[in-house]
């Protein structure tokens, strides 16, 4: 599903160059649930942003679902993001003046799907995350866990190949965190590939594979026995 070879990325900070990713080789099969771990500054978010085409790589190759991601201009990236990827952010990133349902429908708007179909599809995914009764509410009327579940519904609505979650539980208490992880596990069980960036050990252990980053290189990559979140809720 995802294949990355010899990936390098550096940022210019003033006169200095900060080498963030130093030759990453990494691949993900369809249906995997991978946790990318590492302390802050290890490059884990940068890796996720490159996979998500929110950021561009300096050198190396990146293939997504058999499509080589090259010569990425903003228009092309936008189309790939819309077709292949669903995002879940730490700070939810819902549009504040749109209701839960409208937020979920937004990626479908950019897929040029008709209004009626958008509404029924978004409603379907809101039901899936258990928020159909909150469809008409604005984000500031929802709790943190509810907001993240709306964001997950939004990420699913476009029916992407891969879900990318950047610290999805970072802004939530542990009980809500486990609820969100339970939802992600359930989505993974249905066959969706999921990448989770986290620095929390217990969240990482709820995935099926842990990749450890340190100073821009992978120091550890192993499959684990998944802990089911439902046991903790």
């Amino acid at each position, binding site marked *: 599903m995802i294949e990355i070879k010899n990936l390098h990325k550096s940022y210019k900070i003033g006169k200095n160059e900060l080498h963030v990713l130093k030759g990453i080789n990494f691949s993900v099969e369809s249906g995997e649930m991978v946790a990318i771990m590492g302390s802050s500054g290890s490059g884990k978010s940068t890796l996720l*942003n490159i996979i*998500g085409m*929110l*950021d*561009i790589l300096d050198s190396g190759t990146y293939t997504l679902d058999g499509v080589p991601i090259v010569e990425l201009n*903003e*228009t092309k990236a*936008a*189309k790939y*993001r*819309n*077709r292949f990827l669903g*995002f879940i*952010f730490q700070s939810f*990133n*819902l*549009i504040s*003046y*749109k209701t839960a349902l*409208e937020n979920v429908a*937004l*990626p479908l*708007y*950019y*897929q040029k799907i*008709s*209004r009626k179909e958008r509404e029924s599809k978004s409603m379907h995914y809101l039901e899936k995350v258990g928020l159909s009764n909150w469809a008409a509410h604005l984000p500031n009327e929802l709790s943190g866990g509810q907001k993240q579940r709306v964001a997950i519904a*939004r990420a699913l609505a*476009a029916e992407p190949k891969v879900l990318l979650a950047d610290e999805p539980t970072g802004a939530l208490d542990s009980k809500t965190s486990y609820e969100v992880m339970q939802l992600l596990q359930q989505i993974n069980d249905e066959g969706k590939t999921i990448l989770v960036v986290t620095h929390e050990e217990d969240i990482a252990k709820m995935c099926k594979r842990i990749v450890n980053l340190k100073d821009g290189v992978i120091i550890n990559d192993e499959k684990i026995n998944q802990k089911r979140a439902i046991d903790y809720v």
Partner: protein
Amino acid sequence: MFSSDNWQEIFQTIKKNKLRTFLSGFTVSLGLLIFITLLGLGNGLKNSFNQFFMDDATNSFYIFPGQTSIPYGGYSVNRTIEFKNDDISDIQRNFPEYLEYITPKMHRNGTISYKNESNSYTYIGVAPSHQIAEKTILMKGRFINELDIKNKTKYAVIGRLVEDDLFGNENSLEKYIVINYTAFRVIGVFQDEGGDNQERSIFIPYSTIQLQEKNTDKVNHIVLAFKPEIGYEGAMIFEEKLTTFFKEKHSISPDDENAIYIRNVADDMNENQQLSGVLTLIVSFVGIGTLIAGVIGISNIMVFVVKERTKEIGIRKALGATPFSIITMILQESIFITVIAGYFGLFMGIFILQAIGNKLEYYFILDPYIDMGTAITATIILITFGAFAGYLPAKRAAQIRPIVALNDK
């Protein structure tokens, strides 16, 4: 780009972001409102200026005879020049290409009475075309005509205040007044915007005055009008030719400046028009200034709007919005708001001008107006610049990498 889906998205943004909508709309409305009001008031100022200074016909020459100051052609100095009937017919014959009309003018003072009322007035011997020269407006009856000149009739056209003085509330038409022991029938009453002095005078046929004065053919001074189409340049040439003609005819030295004096109203008018031009310049300056201020205002708001939406733009891009769709979204929204607000400002401005009407006449602002073409041009300029001002920051925002936009707080 113009699908109903798009519009629904835009209406929603407009409705849910009332402050932003209000700010951008308000700037455009206010800019246009001030522009139209100022320009309208400026036009009002010009109107009263024109009313003050453009009273008499603007294509007239007043020709006065004087005394020679240089001996010439066998005559000694200090000879009094006099115009006669043949001067008038000579001008008519020699300058038909320039001349529109011509009239002699003979001022006399005398006691004028009706029944027991009497008073001292100026009475003036004129030809029919004098009515045009002084823009005399007849309130009732008629002015002197060619037949009166030919028959040397004893008819008089009296000023409004003469009628007031002598007749009180009585109707003066067809009554007889006595001018210097001779009875004249009143055939008309006039008014003149030139003021009270003019309305306290009386017109009679110039030939009648000549008859009374021992059948002389002297005419004192001459008023004539040139054809307006010859323009200012033509008027200047005509004045020169006239001077040469008179100097030759009356044996005056070409260098004598005192023997004949021609007052050229076209020359006065030229000065007035220059003043009026300065007024136009000031009004345009104020107008353009206001417009520029409005354009800067709407540009600032657009920069602010895009800045405020940076994070939203990042979210939309992460969800698959192309830069093009971001730009069209912002532009469509800003153009929609500026068009609505622009026309609102336009009609408010025109409404205010109409409400002012002539209430500010005391401050020399008469009948303020704005020409519809100018108003609509200004509206279109503001809308265009609003769109342009929105385009640049929108384009920049659309090119920002989504990760940067998402990190925007």
